[in-house]
């Protein structure tokens, strides 16, 4: 699957209600002893509408006050879905959450990239 097929894909909750779209894929490089470094997906950022992060999320704690305010304002409803809570179908169609939307942590409450 391509990243472009994941991006903007609608997300529905366990009851089939649409809750948002995937706007970002978060991953971590991993290395097992004696193997190459691989990049494994940790989870997905889900936002209402088409709001992308565009790397401005880095300013939510540091940076100009106006930008901090704007980032927090824009992403106040966005949530982070860990990889084991979201099922991506192989073909077209919405991604399905395995847990209730309200059980997902708010994006602004999870650890951010450095």
């Amino acid at each position: 699957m391509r990243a472009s097929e994941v991006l903007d894909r609608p997300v529905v909750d366990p009851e089939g209600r649409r809750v948002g779209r995937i706007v970002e894929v978060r991953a971590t490089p991993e290395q097992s002893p004696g193997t190459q470094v691989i990049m494994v997906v940790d989870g997905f950022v889900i936002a209402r509408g088409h709001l992308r992060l565009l790397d401005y999320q880095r300013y939510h704690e540091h940076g100009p006050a106006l930008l901090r305010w704007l980032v927090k304002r824009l992403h106040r409803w966005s949530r982070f879905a860990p990889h084991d809570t979201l099922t991506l179908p192989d073909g077209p169609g919405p991604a399905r959450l395995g847990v209730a939307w309200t059980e997902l942590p708010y994006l602004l409450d999870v650890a951010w990239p450095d």
Partner: protein
Amino acid sequence: MWWQGQRTVDLVSELLDRQIEDDDGRGVGKVDDLELVRRADGRWEVTELLLGGRALAGRLGGRVGRLVGWLTRRLHGSDQPRGIPLSRVTAIGPAVRVPAEVADAVRSPSERWLRERVISRVPGAGRARE
């Protein structure tokens, strides 16, 4: 450079559209898409950086995507995007760094043609990298 730094990465914001360069800093292209593969344990793993018009066409979608795809097929004659295995990436910073042999293998056919047929015939072109 964070590739070997073991930190969390936002793939879309930080990798897509990033310039790809060889060891000498010569541009190869841009990261137009990423190939993700589902592992046996259900987790997704990034396996390849995709570049070229076909990868970009899929990402753009719609009429613009179809137009880019058609142009790419006409110019390059290939329907497949060019891919760089993530294992061959040496560093990711302001640009994605790959070894020279990998860069040569995925360099745009039109750029290769231009380099071999035109640039190399310009007097002094052989000293360009000295």
